[in-house]
């Protein structure tokens, strides 16, 4: 097949899409894909008209098979929105892909009624290719949206997972839970030092009871946090180092010599209060709540 006839098919197919626009939109709006995401039939018709416009533009440009074509790029934001409406149910799944495939049938039926015998097959191939590309773009958009959501959630998680708690006047604690990576330990360091400055805390307790493992980098980070706190004029106590972690640290040759460490958070708090010149003890007359 020569390039001339390729161009000819392109023209014929896009003319066909123009001529049959209303019929196609009517069929598509009733298809299960648009019905499942749209709230009413008007919206389904609007969405399918816009999708058809994008597909037609890609076909007219001769790029029915290229997901990066302008026509498909125009559709990305719409498809992302459609995909996010699917989120409430099960998101973009194999079923969605099948539903998009169903868009081919009405197109091909109308094409069959219209086309010359000579152009029938190449035109059908082009239309099927365009819908397949559309499906690819939908999945790509959904994946991109999911990636963005993940990134946002990861950020929120790192903020949520490093709360700085004021245990006493001048005593802060940051209980770390879960696996520490370099980003999380950095966030922890920054929020702890910031809180030391704003609350003028003399002692900060880094509690790692909830941390299952510590690698060299995280251990170094804890050490650096303690050093930075000391430079600011506060003291850092590390509590809750598990036996396995202590073992690892010794084998890695990490020396916490200059940093106070305590076995439990309670011990660290007692140490902190002692550093502030305070003392906690049970009174002989029993519990006395002031």
């Amino acid at each position, binding site marked *: 097949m020569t390039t001339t006839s390729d161009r000819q098919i392109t023209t014929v197919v896009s003319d066909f899409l123009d001529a049959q626009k209303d019929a196609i939109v009517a069929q598509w709006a009733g298809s299960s894909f648009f019905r499942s995401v749209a709230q009413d039939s008007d919206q389904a018709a609007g969405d399918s008209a816009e999708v058809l416009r994008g597909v037609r533009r890609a076909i007219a440009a001769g790029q029915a098979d290229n997901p990066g074509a302008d026509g498909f790029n125009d559709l990305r934001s719409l498809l992302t929105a459609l995909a996010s409406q699917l989120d409430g149910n099960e998101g973009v799944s194999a079923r969605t892909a099948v539903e998009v495939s169903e868009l081919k049938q009405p197109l091909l039926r109308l094409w069959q009624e219209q086309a010359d015998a000579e152009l029938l097959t190449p035109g059908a191939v082009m239309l099927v290719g365009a819908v397949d590309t559309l499906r690819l773009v939908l999945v790509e958009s959904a994946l991109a949206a999911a990636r963005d959501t993940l990134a946002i959630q990861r950020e929120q998680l790192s903020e949520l997972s490093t709360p700085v708690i004021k245990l006493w006047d001048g005593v802060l604690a940051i209980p770390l839970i879960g696996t520490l990576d370099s980003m999380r330990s950095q966030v922890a*360091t*920054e929020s702890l*030092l*910031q809180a*030391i*400055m704003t609350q*003028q*805390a*003399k002692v900060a307790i880094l509690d790692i009871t909830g941390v299952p493992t510590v690698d060299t980098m995280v251990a170094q980070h804890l050490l*650096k946090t303690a*050093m*930075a*706190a*000391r*430079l*600011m*004029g*506060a003291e850092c106590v590390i509590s809750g180092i598990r036996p396995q972690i202590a073992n690892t640290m010794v084998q890695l040759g990490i020396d916490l010599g*200059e940093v106070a460490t305590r076995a439990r958070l309670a011990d660290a708090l007692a140490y902190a209060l002692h550093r502030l010149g305070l003392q906690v003890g049970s009174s002989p007359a029993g519990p006395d709540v002031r």
Partner: protein
Amino acid sequence: MAGVPIVSLNGVLLVTIQEELLDQSVAEFEQELTEKVVETRARGVLIDVSVLDIIDSFLARTLHDIAAITSLMAARTVVVGMRPAVAITLVELGLTLPGLETALSVEEGLSLLSPAPGPARTARP
């Protein structure tokens, strides 16, 4: 004159570094301060760095040296108010400045330097 005001207050030299200093000024400041310690027979030196966004390795090193020099003259040096970002940067550079006394605020630094109460206090001439 390095442009760093040094205030003598009740036996303590109070220094607030108000802007980033050039290396030359830092050296002059060091000299002026140590001379002043002898002159005023100060008990302690309080260096407030809370205004500084940047403390370079030279200034950090000098702060450490001042602490060592003044301790030879029986005066303690306390650096106060270092910002979190500055502290992290110094630690990342490996300048943990062991032996340098630090405090969160001028107030706390002064209470660190206040003479210990009790009968052991020696009379100042």
